[in-house]
Structure formats: C-alpha cells, structure tokens
C-alpha cells in the first residue's frame, strides 16, 4: 500500500502542489497576528484567546483537501489516466484506498505543519513586537498541541466529504471546491444565521460524513460509472 501511495505522489504535478502548499502555510502562519492588528484587538487579549482563533483558521486545509481530490481523483478520470491504473492487476478498491490514504496522510501532515508554523510565527512575532497580552502558559501549550492532533484529524476527515459524490461519482471540480468552501465556513454560517448548534456536535457530524464518503468511495468504485 505504501508503494501505491508513493506512486500517487509521483504521478502528481508536484511543483504545483508544493507551491499551493507554501501559499497556504504562508497565509495561515501570519493570519492570527493579522486578525489582531486588522480585525479586532480582542483576539490578542491572551494566548488562550488567540489559540482558539489559530485552531479555527486551520479549517483552510479543507480547501487544500479539495484541491488534492481534484488532482488525485477527478483529473485522473478526466484525463483518462485512471484507465491505466484500472488495467493493472490490482483491484480498484485497493487503488482507491491508496488514493484516499495518500490524500488523508498528506492533508493530516500538512495541517500539523501548518499548526506548528502558525504557533511558532505567532509566538515569535509577539516576542519581538508585544502583540498579545501575557505569556503562553503550560496549559495553553498543552491545549494547543492536543487540539493540533485532534483538529488535524478532524480537518482530514471533513476534507474527504466531497470525495465520493463530487469526486469518484460525478467527477466535478467546481462543486468539489464549492463544497469544501461551504464546509470550511459551516460554523461561521450557523453563527451568522443565528442557528444554535453545538460546534463539537457539528464537527462530529461532519467527521462521520467524511468517513461515510471514504467508505462509499472504496465500496462503490466498481459500480459508479464506466470509463
């Protein structure tokens, strides 16, 4: 399986993906300080406040996941290169599993790195320019690192929601991106629309949808449309 995942990486336009990734990392690492300076100084009240913001902005990686779905799954169907893979003596389920695991691992690792970069950048900028009140406590750091793992996992699963319907089945790029944008902003929409939903429950629900999408993608790959 590791070899199949590595082959997925070798087939991609690697420079383009790395460029995209650098843009994501660059934006997300400076975004917390940008919010304090340009949107509201309330975010700089304490490290515990800014940590909440830093965690929520990493949802941006759901969009990165959509970009990967587009390149790893949809483009392969559109360019018909998927027919090469399906002609090898490897079952389609295994091939799709390799694609899903590759996307998952890539999004998970990149989100972790993004968390680390955002944390370090925010701390260093605060260290030199005194932007946030107070110093980070051990409790703040523990929260940040535990949330980093949990949220990276959650973001990975949420990013896979469009995989089955818009990826494997409909093979549609634009709806995949739109779906990711909607999922990224879901919590904000419910806040703006004054809908009172427990955010943790929403996240659990979205994670379940992501898991269902993965299950259906692998289960139904033989059935959803011929090449």
């Amino acid at each position, binding site marked *: 399986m590791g*070899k199949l995942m590595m*082959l997925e990486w*070798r*087939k991609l*336009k690697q420079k383009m993906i790395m460029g995209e990734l650098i843009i994501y990392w660059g934006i997300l690492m400076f975004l917390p300080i940008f919010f304090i300076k340009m949107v509201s100084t309330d975010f700089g009240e304490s490290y515990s406040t800014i940590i909440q913001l830093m965690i929520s902005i990493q949802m941006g990686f759901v969009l990165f996941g959509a970009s990967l779905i587009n390149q790893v799954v949809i483009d392969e169907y559109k*360019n*018909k*290169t998927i*027919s*090469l*893979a*399906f*002609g*090898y*003596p*490897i*079952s*389609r389920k295994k091939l799709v599993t390799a694609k899903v695991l590759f996307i998952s691992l890539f999004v998970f690792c990149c989100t972790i790195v993004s968390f680390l970069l955002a944390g370090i950048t925010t701390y260093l900028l605060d260290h030199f320019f005194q932007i946030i009140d107070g110093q980070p406590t051990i409790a703040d750091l523990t929260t940040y690192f535990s949330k980093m793992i949990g949220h990276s996992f959650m973001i990975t699963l949420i990013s896979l929601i469009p995989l089955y319907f818009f990826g494997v089945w409909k093979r549609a790029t634009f709806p995949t991106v739109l779906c990711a944008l909607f999922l990224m902003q879901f919590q904000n929409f419910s806040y703006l629309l004054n809908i009172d939903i427990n955010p943790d429950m929403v996240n659990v629900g979205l994670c379940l949808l992501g898991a269902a999408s993965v299950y259906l993608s692998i289960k139904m790959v*033989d059935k959803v449309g*011929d*090449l």
Partner: protein
Amino acid sequence: MEYIVRTNGLTKKVKSKVLVSNVNLQIKKGEIYGFLGQNGAGKTTIMKMLTGLISPTTGEITLFNQKLTEISKSSLKRVGSIIEYPIFFEHLTAMENLQIHCEYLGYYDQKAIIQALDMVHLTGIEDKIVKDFSLGMKQRLGIVRAIITKPELIILDEPTNGLDPIGIKDMRDLIRMLNREYGITFLLSSHILGEIEQVADRIGVIKDGKLVNEVTLADISKQRTEYIEIVTKDVQKSVYLLDSELKIPNVKIIQDNRIRIYDLTLPQSEISKTLILHDIEIEEIQKHISTLEDYFYQQIHGGDKVG
C-alpha cells in the same frame, strides 16, 4: 491447441443499449488475431473488457486459463495494451511514465525500458515531456509501454493511428518480429484493412456487437477471385454484346455504370476490341483481384462492394 483468450457469451449492455452481444472468442497462443468492424461495431468495448477496464454485463472472460474478474486480475500482468489512444501523464517525461508503469506491475528492469525504446526507435526522448510529443510519437511510446514487461498477449486498438507511412511499416515489422521471435500473441483492430491483411493470421468480423465470422487469411486467399471491371455509360448494350458476341456468361452489373466479368477465358484486349468496334465508349477497363476489403464489405453488408 492452447487458447490464451476465451470468452463465453460475452455481453455488454449500457442502459438498454447492447454494445456487445454473446461474443464467443478464442485466440490461440502465438497467433495474430485481427478484429474488423465498422466504427461503433463493438471492437473497443470487447478490448476494454479483455483488459479489465470495463466489466461484462454477462458472460465470462478467461485469460491464460484464469477467469478475469475484478477480484481476480492477476492474469493482466501478462497482458500489454493500448486501447483507443495512448494515454500518458502528459506533464511527466517518457521515462517517468514508463517507470511508473513498471512499478505498478512490479517489474524493475531498467535495461528493459531502454531495450523497448530501442525496438521502437524512440531512443533519446527519455527525458522529454510527453505533452510535447506528436500523436505518432505517443503511439510509439504506447507500444513501448505495452511491450516493456514482455507480456505474452498484446492488445492493440488501432495501433497505426497517427503514424506516418514509415511508422506504419515499422509498426507492422515490430508486431511481426515480436510475434515471431518472442512468441507474443496479438489481438489487433484496425480500420486500415490492408494493415490487418498484412499481419493477421486470423480475422474476426464484428458487426453490431456480434462476432459474425472468424476466418483465417489462408481461407480468404482461397476465396479470392479475379474479375475484369468495365466502366461505361452504355451498360445494357455492353452486356448484350458480351453475351451475344463473346459468349461470356458470368457477368454482373454493379451500380449503373460498372460491369464485372468473372469468366476470364477471353483476354482483356479481346473484350475491349469487341466493345470499341460496336461504338461502346469505355471509360475504364481493368483486371481486379477481390481483396480482404471486398470480403470485409461482404461480411458487413452482405453484398458486393459498390462505388
């Protein structure tokens, strides 16, 4: 006789449309088998099923005495193919594409890649991006990919598409060489009947998704007939003269202005002389041998070739 491809009642339906119907195909080890059929006859669909790209609605495929199903595809390791047109990761180099192919098949012989490129006269392009290749080069690179792992069966759908005349000859020579020297079995399809005629040992005629006939080239050669074809505006008078003056019984009118004479006892010069002496204006008179094209046309349309 060992058959390496066998299909039993192979059928493919998409919604209510029957693309392939009850095809029972048998390809012997070491032969070159050609598919003939018009566009949309079902050749590519059969080839897609044989390479595991689509699954049959009903029927069975057996490759190398193993049933081919989605959960049992190991026999595909022994098959190389190009279906419809050669597909590549266009942003990668030729070498990267070939290496990825080999890794999917668990084949790690770098020398085999160079050897295969050499066979198709494609050396020196290894580090070039496939996007910049002409269709002909892609077709040849597709052949390289199909032969690289030395498969026992190669399935080529329209292999001469996009090739120039020299490329077509090279392809024909390559197929013959691989068949002769390595014992590789081929399943080919082509619209260029002369191409199939020059390489295939046996031909399967596909019409409306059905395998309507299978015949060896040797059998077709036996069935070949010679005839003289006359093109004239005065068909009725010509036929009358051929019958009354020259006593030629076996004459056939094709369209409104062509006459075919199948009895070749009299020389062509004698026939022309008689017709000219009776003021018949001959636009063309020529001796023909019925070709595979004629045979194919008869199989598809059930009549003589016209026009």
